[in-house]
């Protein structure tokens, strides 16, 4: 929870009672990194644009901030969606792929439908998650990436998800102590027949596995953009550590 605790100390809304402390415990410097052009990846925008339907529209962003204003999760993001779009456009690849923002995104699509330039922001967040998983730049403090992996593994193997199993596995792997907190709720649900430990599965697992394999084997939808700055060394990454 390290990353979260850090971002959550900067609430700008009328924050929940517990969070309004009014004083900062320790002075800390505000970091505003300067960026050399050599550290930017000019091909990043094209890379994202190619990976998201209508992703090309991100170039039309006018930085109005509607996405951030409408975002229910903004409080917990290290970079506002607006900044993510701006940074993608200018090629601040390293910061963006390390950001917590795509992982905090609730996929509620508010930004996508409210964006006056109709940029598929949620789709871009998903694309960023894919990159971060591929390149292992996802924030280590958040369990979301692990959970998504776990979820996908279960679906690929069994065809259906069983909520209780995924949750359990998650807690065991990340915060075993949290599991204890949820035992009472689990019991209540079990008593009401809403939770069990039987694992769901489809019959024709072989077909599903073959289908997913076949997706990989089909000719790719488009060649991935090639231009990428050669191994950019980056001082100080944005977001989670």
């Amino acid at each position, binding site marked *: 929870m390290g990353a979260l605790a850090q971002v959550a100390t*900067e609430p700008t*809304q009328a924050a929940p009672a517990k969070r309004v402390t009014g004083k900062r415990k320790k002075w800390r410097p505000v970091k505003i990194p300067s960026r050399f052009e050599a550290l930017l990846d000019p091909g990043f925008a094209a890379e994202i644009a190619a990976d998201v339907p209508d992703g090309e529209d991100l170039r039309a962003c006018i930085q109005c*901030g*509607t996405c951030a204003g409408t975002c229910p999760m*903004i409080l917990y993001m290290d970079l506002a969606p607006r900044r993510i779009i701006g940074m993608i456009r200018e090629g601040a690849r390293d910061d963006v792929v390390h950001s917590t923002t795509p992982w905090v995104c609730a996929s509620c699509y508010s930004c996508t439908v409210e964006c006056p*330039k109709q940029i598929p922001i949620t789709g871009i967040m998903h694309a960023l998650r894919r990159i971060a998983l591929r390149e292992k730049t996802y924030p280590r403090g958040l369990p979301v990436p692990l959970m998504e992996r776990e979820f996908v593994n279960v679906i690929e193997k069994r065809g259906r998800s069983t909520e209780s199993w995924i949750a359990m596995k998650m807690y065991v792997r990340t915060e075993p102590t949290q599991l204890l907190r949820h035992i009472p709720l689990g019991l209540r649900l079990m008593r009401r027949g809403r939770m069990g430990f039987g694992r769901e599965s489809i019959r024709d697992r072989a077909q599903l596995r073959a289908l997913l394999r076949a997706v990989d084997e089909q000719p790719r939808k488009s060649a991935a953009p090639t231009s990428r700055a050669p191994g950019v060394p980056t001082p100080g990454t944005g977001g989670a550590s």
Partner: protein
Amino acid sequence: MLEPEMDPTSQPVSTNGGPKVGVYVCHCGLNIAGKVDVQAVVGFASTLPNVTVARDYKFMCSDPGQDLIEQDLRAGLVNRVVVASCSPLMHEATFRRATAKGGTSPYHFQMASIREHVSWVTADGDDATQKANALVAAAVRRVALHEFLEPRQASVRPDVMVVGAGIAGIHAALTLADAGKHVYLVERETTIGGHMAKFDKTFPTLDCSACILTPKMSQVRSHPNITLWTYSDVVAVEGFTGDFKVRVRHRPRYVREDLCTGCLECIEQCIHKQGKFEDEWNEGLGKRKPIYIPFPQATPAVVVVDPETCIWFKTGKCPRTCIEACERDAFDFEQTETFDEVNVGAIILATGFKTFDAARIPAYGYGYYPNVYTSLEVERLLNAAGPTGGDAILRDGTKPKTVGIIHCVGSRDERNNAYCSKVCCMYSLKLAHLVKERTGADVYNFYIDMRTPGKGYEEFYDRIMKEGVHMVRGRVAEVTDQARSPQEEGRLVIRAEDTLMGSVRRIPVDMVVLAVGMEPQPDAQDVRRLFNISCGGEGFFTERHPKLAPVSTFTDGVFLAGACQGPKDIPDTVAQAGAAAAEALAMVDRGYVMLEANTAWIDEATCSGCKTCVGLCPFSAIAFDEERKKASVNEVVCKGCGICVGACPSGAAQQHLFTDAQIFAEIEGVLEHV
């Protein structure tokens, strides 16, 4: 003007000798030459049949370029001209004139559009050169078949009609009237003045809108050269440039305009003691009686009865105290619609705009939260002649302590209007100033980008910022009454990212002002059809050329002024209205216009008398001689569409400049050399 005129001193170069075609390929700087291999096109052209001269030049439309054509014609090297350059809609007239100056018919000319149709739209240079060749070949084949035609002239009616009497129409009408032309000024509303009459102050000088507008309004009323028709609209337009026949409908006011003196005694005496009905002029913020005048300086100062709400019209039972109150017997409850038909030489459209309907953005809660206003409503609240006498107060009568002004409502938004409405930044600053001045409220402006290009505009922005108005850079995501803290309780909360601060803010306010953008009038499409002009994708009327012909339209004799052509502020509108008046004046003052030569004719020898063409002609230009069983075209009425020609089963109907032979030649040309 750009009409071709033949040099009267010279004799035609050749009318019956074999065709000698000159081909002139334009580089247009790099616009064409950057893509098309101009030398190759010239080389290709010189191999074509009938071509005697093939040249290229950097800018054919320049004087030296035109001189090339003239010299070759005069030297007898050529007697037909093909220019391969831009679109004929751009420079056809120019080159026809050059051809005529060379001593032949201006119509011994054909243009090949290798810029708009080739170099600008083709990715590959070789493809472009090929396509240019094909178009040149087609033009060469076609021009050989061009007949010797004389330009036609038509006389122009001296009067002008101006449609719409906002500031644009008023200014155009006064300009023309001052020049001695008679103007028919038609206004749909009961008063002239348009949107400008609703404003309190104008930016950036903050001079009072009424103070600068009403003198012009009364000038219109009293000008001997202006016939003012309010509460009227154009219902039909016939004819063409120089001679339009316009039918105007006058709606009944139930009060005779010639008798009413505007004493307003009748309103006082109306059986309704209080105003009861939504007052459209005040954007529904005030109430009016069934008999009313929109505002004290309304022009003409004539009352109007609204039959929808008047008890007499609804029930037939009313003592009609209004009639008794009138000393001049101006009432006429039997009035009906009347019509006028006038002939004018030119028409200026100044039909204005409407404001964006803020309810189309549900996130801002307009029409849902009572304290969310549009900017036009606030203009009325701030206006001394408005429903509150100039007090910026909320619907419950209290003064707002905090006001949020949201810019770009409906503008710069793909879901609504993608364009920038141009005026909202400035008027929002003006409203911020006025609201702050009148109420002492804290004012927040939420903007995406501030756009203040204009004389004195940036200085005004500067001044407003120094007055302490909060400028928050961020588009508002939502206006809500959901309270998350005690100070938000019972107020409206504006949620937006302050992109400069880098955080999302929730700002509780008492009043929200939506700076709505400008949109085409809802009936712009109907008006467009009526006057035979076109609209752009966003619905504003399209000018003939965005830079070089900003007040003309594709229909000769119809001009544009003001916001009907696109969002504009008052200074721009007035400037454009003046320009439109000048263009119209230039046309009617000369007294004649040149007409296209492309009329239809019927070859009597081949006409079989089937009458197919007669019924098809949209302009009833074809007469039929029952005795000789032959149709004939009245070339004065014919507008040159060629519908009859396309339909004639015997090939007897033909169209000048678009004969079957010419088009077959063009088809062969585009296909032959690919």
